């Protein structure tokens, strides 16, 4: 109720002001900018200038084996048997399981024979098809259908590629990498998804290219993420096409440095069938591109045709009343940059809120570009080509293309933390052993000086003891096995505790 009143007030004021300005803006010659040649965008992540990086997978950790999975076998069993560096080939057939990969450098690849794919079928009962939380993961060539949750999702895997999968009717998200750095999502066909077909959440350095997404609420969503390029995708018959968002209330608070270019964005007018309360439930049916609160978003070279509400909709959180409060988020979409796009037949049957605000600028009829809310340092070229509302504060861009930005993928991939052996030993000793052992007196287990005397520099003997402790001292409690530590850490901690000098022993 309150909102409607405010809008009404704005309209009344604008009609008054607009009335006497009307005569002065007619027949002003448009500023025409060629996007061929000319200055190229140079404000993105530093990763763009050096190499033309086309892959997100670094060299393999080890020369691995190839494991083959046949129909009737379990893919998960192969994952459990696999070592980093291995490739798992899944032969065509139906597999009904949830596959989870909690190790690094596994390539999970379906084999396609004469069009027949390895098919993960959730039967409408299973939650997710593929989950992973390892680095350097490849998921390719699968068909995934009838899962309730996600087709392919990750939590914190860096350096991933998700390629050439067909994902049909799998619930909430088709492809959902979250909290990952450096990922490539390309050549997938995703449809029938109740939220976003491809959803990049809280991630950095992402490339989404050559995918077809349709019959979903959102086509491609870049949310609370940075350094992302969405290009050459075919995005059609969704509720909203491509979104660059900040969702408030998430632990990572920004979206910036996003390029949306050379996509075909057509006919995204299907009714919104998202779950009530979900963030995308607020997307107006008939939106080509939606930019909400994200900064440094460049929209270039897209074909954006046939959208009821608007071709490009840009808004701040202040104009999205259903969202929660987050004082740590900048609610405005700043530095939005609109270069040349082909736009046609948009905003022909828009929603009341958009129509009402358009009237404040005395605009009626089609709307290619609609912007509402504060937006600092935004720009556009060749604005005269479009039906637009709310671009009064947009300057002329001082560049006309993004040709010098090939991708934001990282050459050689995101690097793991490198830990020197001594530091590794210290971390494990302090974090685990020190709970029971002190240098020169007895806490729960024997003192380190006793252990040093007993093992006399033999780290390997300590490693074998901590893997399978046996009772040595009758009056001490049993030591729990430390076999969960990897071999490198076990040796590091054994060497560390053999070399603790007295002065540094006081943890």
């Amino acid at each position, binding site marked *: 109720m309150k909102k409607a009143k405010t809008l009404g007030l704005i309209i009344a004021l604008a009609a008054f002001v607009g009335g006497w300005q009307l005569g002065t803006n007619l027949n002003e010659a448009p500023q025409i900018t060629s996007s061929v040649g000319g200055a190229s965008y140079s404000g993105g992540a530093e990763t763009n200038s050096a190499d033309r990086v086309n892959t997100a997978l670094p060299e393999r950790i080890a020369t691995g084996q190839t494991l083959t999975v046949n129909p009737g076998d379990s893919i998960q069993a192969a994952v459990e048997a696999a070592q980093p560096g291995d490739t798992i080939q899944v032969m065509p057939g139906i597999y009904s399981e*949830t596959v*989870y990969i909690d*190790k690094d450098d596994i390539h999970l690849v379906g084999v396609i024979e004469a069009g027949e794919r390895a098919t993960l079928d959730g039967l409408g009962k299973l*939650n*997710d098809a593929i*989950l992973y*939380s390892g*680095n350097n993961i490849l998921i390719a060539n699968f068909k995934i259908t009838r899962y*309730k*949750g*996600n087709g392919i*999702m990750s*939590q*914190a*895997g860096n350096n991933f590629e998700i390629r050439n999968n067909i994902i049909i009717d799998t*619930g909430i*998200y088709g492809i959902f990498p979250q*909290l*990952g*750095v450096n990922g490539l999502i390309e050549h997938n066909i995703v449809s029938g998804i109740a939220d976003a077909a491809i959803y990049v959440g*809280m*991630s*950095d350095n992402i490339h989404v290219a050559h995918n077809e997404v349709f019959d979903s609420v959102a086509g491609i969503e870049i949310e609370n993420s940075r350094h992302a390029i969405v290009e050459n995708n075919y995005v059609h018959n969704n509720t909203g096409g491509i979104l660059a968002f900040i*969702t408030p*209330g*998430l*632990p*990572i608070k920004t979206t910036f440095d996003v390029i949306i270019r050379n996509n075909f964005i057509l006919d995204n007018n299907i009714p919104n069938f998202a*779950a*009530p*309360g*979900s963030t995308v439930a607020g997307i107006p049916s008939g939106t080509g591109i939606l930019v909400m609160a994200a900064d440094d978003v460049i929209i270039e070279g897209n074909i954006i045709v046939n959208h009821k509400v608007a071709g490009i909709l840009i808004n701040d959180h202040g104009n999205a009343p*259903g969202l*929660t*409060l987050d004082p740590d988020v900048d609610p405005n979409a700043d530095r939005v940059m609109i270069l040349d796009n082909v736009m046609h037949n948009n905003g022909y049957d828009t929603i009341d809120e958009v129509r009402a605000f358009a009237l404040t600028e005395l605009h009626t009829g089609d709307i290619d570009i609609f912007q509402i809310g504060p937006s600092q340092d935004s720009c556009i070229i060749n604005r005269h080509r479009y039906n637009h509302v709310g671009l009064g504060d947009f300057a002329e861009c001082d560049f006309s293309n993004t040709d010098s930005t090939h991708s934001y993928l990282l050459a050689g991939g995101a690097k793991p*933390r490198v*830990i020197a052996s001594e530091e*590794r030993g*210290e*971390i*494990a000793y*302090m*974090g*685990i052993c*020190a*709970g*029971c052992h*002190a240098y020169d007196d*007895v*806490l*729960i287990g024997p003192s380190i000086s006793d252990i040093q005397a007993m093992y006399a520099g033999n780290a390997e003997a300590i490693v074998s003891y901590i893997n399978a402790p046996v009772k040595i001292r009758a*009056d001490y*409690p049993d030591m729990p096995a430390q076999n*969960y*530590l*990897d071999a490198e*850490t076990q040796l590091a901690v054994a060497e560390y505790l053999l070399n603790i000098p007295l002065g*540094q022993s*006081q*943890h």
Partner: protein
Amino acid sequence: MALLLSTISRANLIKQVYLPLLLSTLLFCSAAVADTIESPPLETTATITLSERCPPSFMLDDNNQCSLRNLYQLYNSLGNHGIGGLKTALPAHRDGFSPQQIDLGRLLFFDPVLSADQSVSCASCHNPSQGFSDGLGRSVGIHGQQGSRSAPSLWNSTFIKDFFWDARAQSLEEQALSPLFSPQEMGSNPTQLLSSLESVEAYPRLFKQAFPNSKNLNLDQIATALAAFQSSLISLNSRYDQYAHGYADALNKQEVEGLNIFRSFVARCSQCHMPPLFTNQQIAVIGTPEPECMARDIGAEKTFGSAKLKGGFKVPSLRNIAETAPYMHSGRFETLREVAEFYSGGRGHAVPEGEDLLLHWHISEPNLTGDELDRLVDFMGTLSDSSLLPIIPQSVPSGLNAISKKASSDKNISESDHEKS
């Protein structure tokens, strides 16, 4: 030793003390709870000295400061936010306190002399043997007064950035003094607190040890010492952690199923309870019911001055969650199974008709099966670890009972067990 020997009497304790207590609150919705336990006789404390060692998981540096070491320091996290998946670094933490400050904080933490009537210590509501909570839905302060919220666990509070259920404090120090001066909790005031501590023979000497450059015992020192002790409570060696570091056999089949449900996008637990701390440290409005006879607690609405956050509370860490029943901000649910059922029951199903809450977008309607709910409970049980439980002082400087009133259990390691020869 005591750590390994101890399970029976905790169950007995719950039966004998807490169940009647809970029943009385449920039946009568009364705020008064009788305090039937008498104060112990005074002991001599002249021999108490402060440790020169850092607690486990902390390394002493050349400046006499303790700095944290844990296995998650082997990893990175995106943007150093400390959220992600299995091999992800933890959020930023507090350390750099001296061993003496931490140890003084430990003595203060267990000393009822900090409360107005010397009946309640910090450990009364944050009992180490109960996951640093108290087994109550709503905690009880001096004079048997029942508060409106449950005592949060203090494990891993070094990684927490906002404190209290409604996120109204931004540091451990700011948090530490508030319960001391709250009339419903420990009921003291600055003047009384300082004079109580100064009148205990050992404290001026111990404060001088912990804060050698200060002249007088003051409130900042109390806050620093309590913050120092709380920052030392590290629980990162659970079976889940072993799995996360790469040991697949650390969890059994049912627990792994639980992990996969936990992180699936049907249940969505891990979207807010994000590894490795199992919280994203945000505010969420989820619409759990209050106990009978209690009005809606507006929670973070007050902190942030926005009705959009009405009924919103900090997402708590789930580490050691199996040890801290009952659950939610006011203890409405007795078991983790009930909590899981709540999330599965449909968006807003427990919000009264006509009440306007802006529920979190991840509150959906997952319709988990009974087996799936059981597996979630199995998984949450793998987040327990008290291997680095601090030593409970056998006596505190005031000579009062270190674990006062309701807080005593032989699960704790006491100094007598510890000093074996």
